[in-house]
């Protein structure tokens, strides 16, 4: 996924590539998602995160519905 300047830039980018719209969020929301998602990645006792915990992170940020279902 990429950063875009505005809705107009997003619409042109999707149109030029022939892609159907997926899901958008502000960089502010993505920053909070990234903070929670990657926080433990370099910890020495890291273990794979159970899918339910990953889904919970999405849910907590209001990223719900079919598009955000991991499995």
């Amino acid at each position, binding site marked *: *996924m*990429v*950063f*875009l*300047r*505005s*809705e107009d*830039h*997003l619409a*042109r*980018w*999707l149109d*030029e590539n022939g*892609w*159907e*719209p*997926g*899901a*958008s*969020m*502000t*960089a*502010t*929301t*993505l*920053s909070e*998602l*990234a*903070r*929670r*998602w*990657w*926080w433990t*990645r*370099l910890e*020495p006792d*890291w*273990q*794979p995160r159970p899918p339910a915990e990953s889904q919970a992170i*999405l849910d907590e940020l209001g990223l719900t519905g*079919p*598009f*955000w*279902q*991991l*499995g």
Partner: protein
Amino acid sequence: MDELDLSIRTYLYASFVETGRSSTPPETAGVLELPESTVSSAYRRLHDAHALVLQPGTTEIRMLNPFSAVETAHRVEAGGRSWYANCAWDALGIPSALHTDGRIASSCPDCGESLELEVVGGELLRGRELLVHFVVPARRWWEDIGFT
């Protein structure tokens, strides 16, 4: 994921953060004093477990998410060092993983204009108005993680 695979993964991440480049199986085998074939097999298992991403058909590391082992449009500076990230999400993930502030240099794929973001104290202070778009739904992220 067994202890061997976890220890190799831990080494790969630590080495990448330190050097900015990914360790090859012969290099990792030398450092960890393991047979190269054992290390190569571990790389493949870690790839299959989505703990890292290899270039197709090789043991060459492409991604140690959120870090990218290849040049991308997303450059992240943190703690006096810099790395490439795989995508917008990963770019914001590098300061998180490092538990530090960070600056991101990226560009809008529509107009090509440079974009700058800055994370301070865990909060996005610059670039808050930018948009992010997910083309691929979550259940399909790993079908083609490079595209995702």
